[in-house]
């Protein structure tokens, strides 16, 4: 999970067109930049398809993901069961499809929690400075000293196992990363615009700063959030694999892998589908995130 705060404040402007420092808003410019990159457009397409599948899961899946069929246990691929059945006779393909909304929702929950906690704290730390900044920075340093999964497991253990709790734990674990990033950006942007704002406008400084700093500081955060989605996905898969996340009989890709592993000797092909799903989705988020980073940082664009 690498993250470098970019140092160039803005190409995406939310300022008024008359503001001399910012170009007029270009709404789809960002999208166009991303789509120009073939890897990113493929990733975006994949994610959209996945989202569609996830939303339509109850109607698309051929079988129920939870109904067990003792007669057809660990069956190989067939016309009826496209990816075979698991050790309880459940259709793997349906479980895979039903796992999509769960997995995606889990990732978004984790990143959402991280943002809700990390963004305001980072913003305030960078803006207020002083002892508040010192304190927050120390806390961030401390939390980042824990190996992420260990901290997540610890928090999950305290909150109680389950998908929601474990994703809240993951969000708590990611929050310091976001906070630090936002703080850094705020420091930079504050230094750049503060002087101009103080010089040109006198009144409503705070408002202006909040309306100008926040949009400018937020861009690398969007990149980071996308990358964190990939990390959250992998975290959910790991935690569910360990039994700390999703609880049976709910299908999560990680949990499916856990079961598949138990019966690996008899039916090793069970391992492929969920693993590939995780890999592709994480890859898609990562590719998108990297493309966004390049698109948002003009210095990187013409390399």
């Amino acid at each position, binding site marked *: 999970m690498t993250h470098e705060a970019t140092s160039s404040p803005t190409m995406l402007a939310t300022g008024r067109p008359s503001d001399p420092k910012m170009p007029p808003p270009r709404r789809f410019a960002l999208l166009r930049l991303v789509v120009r990159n073939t890897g990113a457009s493929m990733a975006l397409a994949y994610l959209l398809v996945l989202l569609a599948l996830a939303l339509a899961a109850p109607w698309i899946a051929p079988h129920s993901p939870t109904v067990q069929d003792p007669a057809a246990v660990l069956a190989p691929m067939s016309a009826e069961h496209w990816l075979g059945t698991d050790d309880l006779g459940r259709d793997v393909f349906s479980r895979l499809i039903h796992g999509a909304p769960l997995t995606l929702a889990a990732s978004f929950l984790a990143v959402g929690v991280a943002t809700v906690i990390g963004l305001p704290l980072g913003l305030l730390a960078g803006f207020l400075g002083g002892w508040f900044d010192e304190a927050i920075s120390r806390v961030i340093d401390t939390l980042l000293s824990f190996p992420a999964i260990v901290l997540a497991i610890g928090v999950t253990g305290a909150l109680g196992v389950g998908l929601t709790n474990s994703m809240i734990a993951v969000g708590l674990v990611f929050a310091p990363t976001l906070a630090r990033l936002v703080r850094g950006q705020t420091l930079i942007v504050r230094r750049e615009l503060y002087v101009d704002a103080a010089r040109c406008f006198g009144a409503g400084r705070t408002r202006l700063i909040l309306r100008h700093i926040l949009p400018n500081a937020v861009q690398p955060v969007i990149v980071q959030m996308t990358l964190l989605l990939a990390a959250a996905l992998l975290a959910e898969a790991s935690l569910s694999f360990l039994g700390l996340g999703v609880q049976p009989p709910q299908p999560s890709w990680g949990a499916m892998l856990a079961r598949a592993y138990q019966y690996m000797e008899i039916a*090793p092909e069970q391992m492929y589908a969920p693993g590939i799903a995780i890999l592709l989705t994480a890859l898609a988020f990562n590719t998108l995130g990297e493309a966004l980073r390049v698109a948002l940082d003009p210095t990187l664009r013409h390399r």
Partner: protein
Amino acid sequence: MSTRSTLRLVLRRLVQMAPVVVLATFVVFALVQLIPGDIAITLAGEGVSEQRIAEIRRLYGLDRPFLLQYAHWLGDAVQGNLSVSLLSGEAVVESISRRLPNTLLIVSLALLISMVVGIPLGIAASVRPGSRLDGFVSVLGSLGIALPGFWLAMLLVAVFAMKLNWFPATGAKSLTEAPLSALHYATLPAIALAASGIAEVARQSRSALLEVMSSQYVRTLHAKGLPQRLVFWKHGLKNVSVTLLTVFGLLVNRMLGATVVIEAVFAIPGMGSLIVNAATGKDYPVVQGVMLTMVVIVIGLNLLIDILYTLFDPRVDAR
């Protein structure tokens, strides 16, 4: 650098890290506060009498003010007493000292593999940017980061343990008792762990090298008529050593976490399985013990890396 200034640096860094360490212990301790409901009731379990709950409350000092509890716990911890497991009754320190070596073995091995494979890959890619090798390395990089480590572990077991029978699928051996056997057992887990490490190291060393080799001082070196190998191996590598140290620190942190999952795949009796079982079984002293150990290891290693920084890069201010 003289030993005296090194000592002063170490002292200074220790002082700087003290608040972080203290905060870390506080976080570990305060974790228990997240438990919904009354802690004493949770610890006591189902269907116990009020009296028993009160007893537990007194036993664990839960009736005392929070900070006092913390001080008491911290005092115990510093003396090496991390309480006992709620499930097994074994002293937490015992469990940890039994399992830590297994974890450390695979993590160390994985770190070694990551650096030994990652750095040459990064160098090779940087020497010929845009080439096929470079493209290969960056694809590898993207894959390594998106690949679920435990899935790779499962695949490795399926192929190398089950099918080919080259490596054992589960378990671990003590390094001190049977070193070769221990390494044999640790190989597959270490490889699974190292996958993302190799990707990260290769990526970072490649970009750091590219940046250095296109810098102005390298231009000066060429203007001085130095041969390329001197420019690269003497100047280039020394300038990227700081980046490599940073990556190393990052990997330590990440691998100590990822090892938890890998250990589950290989059924290794290490820190990972310890904390997972404890978390599922609400064995809080054990959870706290493991977390404390891990964070101390990470902070300690970061301290070491900080000191090494100053050795490699004179610009790092020993402030």
